[in-house]
């Protein structure tokens, strides 16, 4: 099976761009990354159909000289799915913006707990007698509201 070099390079560029955007913090960029990645994979499926030949319509082209129609059918299905996903992610990003004023993907709850716990422990370790009260406060903070800055939304919900 031979593959067009242009398509192969295009797949590489699209997927690379998609991965970079997926690693971003803002949900809108993540969404764009998903779109790029999806398109890259669609082009890859197209490339899997082999080099371009004639339209696979009986009567218009010779039997041995037709494109494989199956990859195109699959791409069509996956375009529809990607489209629906894009719409949903947009709604999600908008709702996130409505609630929090930004659309950034937030940290895992467990990550934040571990981080605040470590801060509290560090306070405890370094602290002399005068700092003991601060350590107590920090420990209480872990139990009640771990990080008030980026946690406002969470507590507001609860």
């Amino acid at each position, binding site marked *: *099976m031979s593959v067009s070099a242009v398509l192969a390079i295009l797949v590489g560029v699209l997927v690379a761009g998609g991965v970079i955007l*997926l690693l971003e913090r803002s*949900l809108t960029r*993540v969404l764009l990354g*998903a779109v790029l*990645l*999806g398109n890259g*994979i669609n082009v*890859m*499926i197209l*490339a*899997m*159909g*082999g080099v371009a030949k004639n339209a696979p319509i009986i009567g218009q082209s010779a*039997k*041995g000289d*037709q494109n*494989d129609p*199956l*990859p195109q059918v*699959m791409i069509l*299905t*996956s375009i529809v*799915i990607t489209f*629906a*996903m894009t719409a*949903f*992610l947009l709604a*999600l990003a908008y*709702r*996130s913006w409505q*609630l*929090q004023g930004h659309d950034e*993907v*937030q940290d*895992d*709850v*467990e990550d*934040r*707990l571990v981080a605040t716990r470590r801060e509290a422990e560090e306070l405890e370790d370094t602290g002399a007698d005068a700092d003991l009260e601060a350590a107590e406060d920090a420990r209480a903070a*872990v*139990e*009640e*509201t*771990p990080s008030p800055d980026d*946690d406002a*939304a*969470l*507590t*507001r*919900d*609860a």
Partner: protein
Amino acid sequence: MSTAALVPLPVVLPLIAAGVKFAIGPRLPKLHRAISVGTLSAVLLVAVLLLVAADRHGPQVAAIGDWRPPVGIVLVADRLSALMLLISAAVTLCVLIYSYGQGSADDEEGLPLAVFHPTYLVLSAGISNAFLAGDLFNLYVGFEILLVSSYVLITLGGTASRIRSGTTYVIVSLLSSLLFLAAIGLVYGATGTLNMADLALKLRELDPNIRLVLELSLLLAFGIKAAVFPMSAWLPDSYPTAPAPVTAVFAGLLTKVGVYAVIRTETLLFPDDDRVAAVLMVVAFLTMVVGILGAVAQTDVKRMLSFTLVSHIGYMIFGVALGSRLGLSGAIFYAIHHITIQTTLFLTAGMIERVAGSTSSEKIGGLAKTAPLLAILFFLPAMNLAGIPPFSGFIGKLALIQGGAQDGSWLAWVLVAGSVVTSLLTLYAVGKAWSRVFWRSPRVAMPSAAADDAAGGSGSPNDVRGATLGGRDIARGGAMPRLMTAATAALVVLGLAFTAVAGPLTDLTDRAAGELRTRSTYVEAVAPGTVVRTADGSTEGPPVRLPADFDRTSSDAGDPFSGRIPGATALPPRPSSGGRVEQQGVGASEIERGAP
């Protein structure tokens, strides 16, 4: 009417019902209930019929639109599919009834339910489609149907915490879908077919290294769905914030769909690769141990249950990695047991939340007095999950440990040790949660809860609140709605029934495992020894003779791995035609069962 005509119904019925429900709109609540319950009951009935037919007469195959494989789409119900379908239908029906109990108790007949119930039906259609798909692309479509509806369900009500956890879930699932799609593209590029029966024949002809790449890329995509260890971090963060019925059905079924796909990949498509089996063993061990250590550290019941969910996926992967008849049988049994038990536990967690206003074991206590029935409903499945002897968890774990012992390799023994340790730690984790929530005196627990109330009810991030379907705070201390109790009790009884019917059930899973290893049964059922429609219109293809090592039944008696002879030894001649379209004609034209 032959039972094969019933195969599409578990997919079609819920989809039609969902459409009808959207058309009716928020009116006529009684009709809505009748449609939902009626549809899922019908699916349950169909699943029973399919299981009986698949067990007696072999795999039931429906070629959609009468397009023959490998070009057309087929839905296949063999023993494994029918069994998974049956248990998922039973569980979705119980959770549906529970959600009606919760909905009416919360007086939410209006808006949110109008979204929840149709979406729930679409979810069940997607699950059925994934179990029945006989074609990789159709499996992808099934995954997408269930994923898209799960996105809607997990962000139901659109509260801040659900949007936060939903974002993680959606992005991770989206990535796994894209990986799956890429894997499908690669498989198609390598073989020119996506029909699983056809792939079982054609993948043998490939270079073993290419086959390894395809296998790993598929396993990667399914591993994310199944929450296997390195790809499991998304699960405990995203599941607990959803409404109780949603979390329950996700925990029970969505990860098991991933496990099912792993089982199919490892048995039908890529049965003979020791390297991957070793990788799966390591991954299974890490999933078990890391997952359960996470569970031990949790104070919130729902989060603790999410971690045990991850941990126990390891048991099923362990069985698949063994690849022997005993191992696969154990994995299937364990999957059925775990679907039921994990769903039940999440439903009871929802009820705890309703009674006590929280699921954090630091804040609540002494519920055994106020809700003794709930204490029993939580205790039984909890002990079942830990694998205390009379329960089905013990039977499943025993089968897997036996499979590991039969395998005999040092890696398998490590896994056996790991599963025993995991089982004990599960007992510790659920025991701790139970005794804190139900057993200890309320006075010890209540001060912090009271302080929390004084602070305006703003809990720690561990506290996952807002359990109504619409995302509002639930009413505290209300009486337990009868429907919720009844549905949970039904699932508890189902979990106990696995012990009562353990004999016939293990026989059935054993036959299912045997069928998985005898690949020619599946291939013959999908492409019966007749002519296959070829792309260039001719009706004849070269006959494919199945090599003797195509099925792995011969190795059942002795060392399970002895059957895994590398496929390259007895290859049928590779078709010489270079083009891809031409290759499609080489399908399972005339299959002869290899004499082992």
